[in-house]
């Protein structure tokens, strides 16, 4: 094996390559803005964004805003997972209900649900409940549909193995159908959580309430573009935290695929 093969196969190489690529892209962006290819009024210099971080952290109380958005995202994720998976299981077991509603649920998944926020403002008021419920509503359909898809795709032979061991319907579900469907359910959860997070930050921005979405709104109003982009980086951090937790949960429930 050559030295280059050894490096490529090293565990640290792929993450390093990822970070390196991002750093290179940022440097190219910095260069393009400095030489005037990109207008610096539209996009701030990455170095200015970097310098804005301490200001955003100290002056804008970003930690509490980050925690608020993260808590809203986590709450919506738990609700989405619980009700989405339960919805998928119910549709799987009741064929008539599935036939009657599956198309509608698929249509809801593709709809711009953020437009429903005025109704939620009336129902829940201008508070965190509206934001969490918006995230929940947006993430519910993909989780439900993917749960249904995963359960329906359980291989016939695995069901027959369960039947040959005389499993009860409850055992058949928990010991065979559900673990078999888990990889697809997690695909749905990732999709659902993306939809939920987009809506949470979007509604925070629109109603100017809560965590990072509100901060981005305020910084934009002040034309503080480096600060705005620095705050967006914290939104990405929330997304990374949620995905990290999802991945851990999947690895725990189903160690290999």
């Amino acid at each position, binding site marked *: 094996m050559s030295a280059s093969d050894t490096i490529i196969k090293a565990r640290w190489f792929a993450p390093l390559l990822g970070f390196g690529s991002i750093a290179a892209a940022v440097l190219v962006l910095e260069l393009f803005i400095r030489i005037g290819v990109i207008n610096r009024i539209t996009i701030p210099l990455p170095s200015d964004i970097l310098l804005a971080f301490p200001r955003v952290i100290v002056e804008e109380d970003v930690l509490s805003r980050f925690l608020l958005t993260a808590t809203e995202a986590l709450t919506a994720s738990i609700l989405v997972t619980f009700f989405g998976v339960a919805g998928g299981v119910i549709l799987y077991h009741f064929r008539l209900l599935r036939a009657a509603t599956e198309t509608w649920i698929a249509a809801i998944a593709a709809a711009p649900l953020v437009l429903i926020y005025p109704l939620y403002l009336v129902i829940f008021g201008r508070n965190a409940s509206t934001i969490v419920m918006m995230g929940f509503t947006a993430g519910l359909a993909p989780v439900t549909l993917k749960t249904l898809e995963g359960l329906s795709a359980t291989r016939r032979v695995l069901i027959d193995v369960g*039947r040959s061991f005389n499993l009860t319907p409850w055992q058949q579900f928990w010991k065979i159908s559900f673990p078999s469907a888990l990889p697809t359910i997690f695909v749905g959860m990732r999709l659902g959580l993306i939809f939920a997070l987009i809506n949470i930050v979007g509604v925070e921005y629109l109603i100017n309430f809560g965590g990072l979405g509100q901060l981005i709104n305020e910084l934009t109003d002040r034309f503080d573009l480096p600060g705005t982009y620095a705050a967006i980086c914290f939104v990405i951090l929330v997304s990374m935290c949620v995905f990290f937790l999802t991945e851990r949960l999947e690895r725990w429930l189903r160690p290999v695929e």
Partner: protein
Amino acid sequence: MLDDATHEANYAMAVVTTSSGIDRGPPEPILVVDNIVKNFYTPDGVVRALDCVSLGVAPGEFVGVIGPSGCGKSTLFNIIGGLLDGFEGSVRVAGEAVRGPHPAIGMIFQEESTFPWRTVIDNVVFPLELAGLPKSERYDKARQFVRMVGLDGFERRYPSELSGGMRQRVSMARTLAAEPKILLMDEPFAALDEQTRLLLGDKVLAIQQQLQQTTLLITHNITEAVQLADRIFVMTYRPGKLKRMVKIDLPRPRTSEIVSSEAFGRYVAQIWSDLREEASRGLKDDETSRNRGGAS
């Protein structure tokens, strides 16, 4: 090893025509399949899959059922295993009628059927977990079966890390762990290459010998059936009936080396001459239905 003349005589005696539908099997069978008739209702009309199929399997006996594609072998497998209902006739295990999956019958399926989310040992422990055995006891017992199928050292591996033959052995160990009185196998090595199939046949023979396991093997592979079975039932093409019973008088314990013997070759040739006619009918039928499909 028996000489050729003795085999010729044994073979002549062993071949029993079963067109009457009455089994000439053992006097006290543990498994009795009695006059099974199964129809499938399709948009094109009623298709009779099985027609008056009767057979018996004695305790500790290894019986093969062989037939061409589409003769109803898998239907018979599912009926005996209790996975299919809506048939005439009966299946009895030690005198008790089978209505649905029966704890005395363990099934090994043609398709790969390990649980991909469980390790080898956790797959094998599955029926013991259902039986409610204490954790240490069930793992000790499962390890015995893992060893029996020759997978010791692979206990912590997942099925995705194993070859097709190893996965089938995991399925076998899982079924054996339930300690069924009757092992029912539906073309368990169909997806494997010929060499692996022969070697796994050795493993099956050794296990069957060790446990004195009553086994019913359903297959379309003549070599496999002759290598493993004490008696072979040859089925007709649709509707599936038992055409002939052949007693395989090859010495035991057997290994795959027996496939090179003359006697083995003669059994294979004789069964093929019975099967050839049925397989040709199946092929013709398949071509006709494809032509009809193409024309419409």
